């Protein structure tokens, strides 16, 4: 136990100088998946399936955690977008709807979020070994009212990665695992500006975008442990060791981006992320109707939470941005129902398991602001996967 505490301490110490030197800080990545969001993101102590690789590599050696995946197509979108499509009959009645002042008011307040991940998700998990390739991309936009033209705030990020991991069991209770991974990330720094300025910049840009696109590679490691004591599981993981350094190239010139002839360079970091969680495998409640019942709770980025405490003072509400809570059970042998709290916001979802094809859905809300409850973004997510 002393060795484990010492190891955690060393990782924290090594991660701190990286934060101090960081010129650009990238948000740790969350893979877009209906199972992850439907379960409230609490997978550190319940790292089963391919989703587990993003939370705790110690799970690969868990009994029956053997999988092969080919396709994992995830699509998320904002309810505002769905409302817009419904109200305008697929944009066909847009002209008519613009004569309704309530609709125009709604339109001015709409937030738009869409994203896609993983059409190819090639993975194999067997005997404690994992090999996987993944990709993901997300775009979100919001209008911010001003006295004149509304401002628009856009964020765009895409990530692809290759992961090799291994997990093994020590004694009867403890699982230890690690990943080595290469990450490619592309993102755009789009400053908040008025819609008019943005449109003008596009139309008069002469081959230049009104923002910079950055693209770079980095490599790093994940490590995790899982203590399995009967129905109780305690998980702990350190991701993105030692703070993944992304050496990127950047440009706002469209031809340079297409040709790959970017010359301007910089460095960014994905910080170390320390996660901890507990899960309870409660087994069968009502045979056939309610079995494989699991409850789980996570605190993600414990190190960043500690930084927040040191910056803003100890405030319980700060925990909300790092708190994840989930529950799921299987019914009729083919349907898994989920619910949870993602950063304090409710989530619901399900997976319909049809042999090798799985259809999943989730509704979730995540926090985009500095404090819980500041700037929530709600999304629907649909996942179609082929895996067994």
């Amino acid at each position, binding site marked *: 136990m002393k060795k484990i505490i010492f190891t955690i301490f060393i990782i924290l110490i090594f991660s701190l100088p990286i934060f101090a030197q960081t010129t650009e800080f990238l948000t740790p990545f969350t893979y877009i998946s209906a199972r992850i969001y439907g379960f409230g993101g609490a997978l550190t102590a319940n790292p089963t399936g391919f989703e587990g690789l993003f939370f705790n590599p110690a799970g690969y050696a868990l009994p029956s955690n053997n999988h092969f995946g080919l396709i994992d197509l995830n699509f998320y979108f904002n309810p505002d977008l769905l409302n817009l499509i419904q109200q305008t009959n697929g944009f066909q009645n847009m002209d008519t709807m613009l004569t309704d*002042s309530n609709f125009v008011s709604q339109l001015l307040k709409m937030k738009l979020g869409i994203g896609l991940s993983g059409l190819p998700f090639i993975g194999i998990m067997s005997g404690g070994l994992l090999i996987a390739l993944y990709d993901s991309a997300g775009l979100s936009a919001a209008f911010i009212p001003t006295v*004149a033209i509304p401002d628009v705030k856009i964020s765009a990020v895409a990530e692809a990665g290759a992961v090799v991991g291994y997990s093994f069991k020590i004694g009867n209770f403890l699982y230890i695992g690690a990943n080595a991974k290469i990450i490619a990330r592309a993102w755009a720094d789009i400053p908040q500006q008025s819609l*008019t300025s943005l449109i003008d910049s596009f139309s*008069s840009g002469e081959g230049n975008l009104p923002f910079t696109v950055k693209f770079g590679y980095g490599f790093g490691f994940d490590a995790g442990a899982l203590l399995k004591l009967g129905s109780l599981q305690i998980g702990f993981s350190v991701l993105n060791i030692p703070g993944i350094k992304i050496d990127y190239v950047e440009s706002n010139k469209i031809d340079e981006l297409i040709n790959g002839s970017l010359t301007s360079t910089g460095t960014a970091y994905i910080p170390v992320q320390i996660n901890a969680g507990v899960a309870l495998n409660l087994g069968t409640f009502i045979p056939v109707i309610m079995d494989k019942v699991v409850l789980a709770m996570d605190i993600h980025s414990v190190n960043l939470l500690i930084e927040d405490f040191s910056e803003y003072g100890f405030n319980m*509400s700060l*925990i909300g*941005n790092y708190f994840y809570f989930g529950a799921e059970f299987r019914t009729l042998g083919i349907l898994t129902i989920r619910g949870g709290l993602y950063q304090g*916001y409710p989530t619901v979802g399900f997976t319909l398991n049809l042999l090798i094809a799985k259809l999943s859905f989730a509704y979730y809300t995540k926090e985009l602001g500095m404090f*819980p409850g500041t700037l929530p973004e709600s999304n629907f997510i649909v996942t179609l996967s082929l895996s067994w």
Partner: protein
Amino acid sequence: MKKNLIFILIFIFIFSFSCTFNLFEGSVESNYKSIKTPSEKIEYARQILAAGDPEKIKTIIALLEDDIDNDVFSGPDLAAANQIVGNLIIADSGFNDYIANAITEIISSQGGEEEPNLMLAILDSNGDGEITDSDMDAFGEMMSQLADAANYINEAAEADPTNVDLQFQNVIANFAAAVVNISDTLSDTTAQEQFQDYLDGTGPEPDFILNIQTNLDNIQGSVQNMLSYAPEGTFYYDIAQMLNDMFAGLNP
């Protein structure tokens, strides 16, 4: 089994509460006061503005106004703080609902034979088809908030002349403030008499003319900044050119 049931009930209990509010949500005041750096305070205010909750907007306006009065912000942060307070006040005023009414009226009348009745569309806030006293009171309240906002936005615009988005916001806000000055005067019989005396050459210049002149000066200043810093051919340059021509016509 009993223990497991208790766990499930606890989960359902917490989940039910979270459906009505975020269990971790702190007050805007406590969150704002825990932020130490001025630039982060402004970023937090931007996030509140983007979320659009009216109660939170009212709270953050008061907090920012206090901090501006207490010299918490300086330099570019002060300009940004003034701009965000101005826009928060505008969001709080319901200005966007009036804009939505105007857009709707213009689009509805396109292709039709009737001219758009913008006055009715804008002022008829309760949608009953006629302009009543309550409509006028609501409009007056909104316009006076716009005038307050104009003071903040003008401060910001003077400190950051290269920001053409901000300059255009200043044009609109000062125009609204000038309209408020005029409408306030026209609804006050004493002020009307003073104005008539001034026109007849039998009385001094009323204060409101000076106020309107200040608004017009602010507009002209921002128009010049837009002409200097907006690239030719852009929306802002064209608008500034048009306004500049208009002012040239007013001041031969």
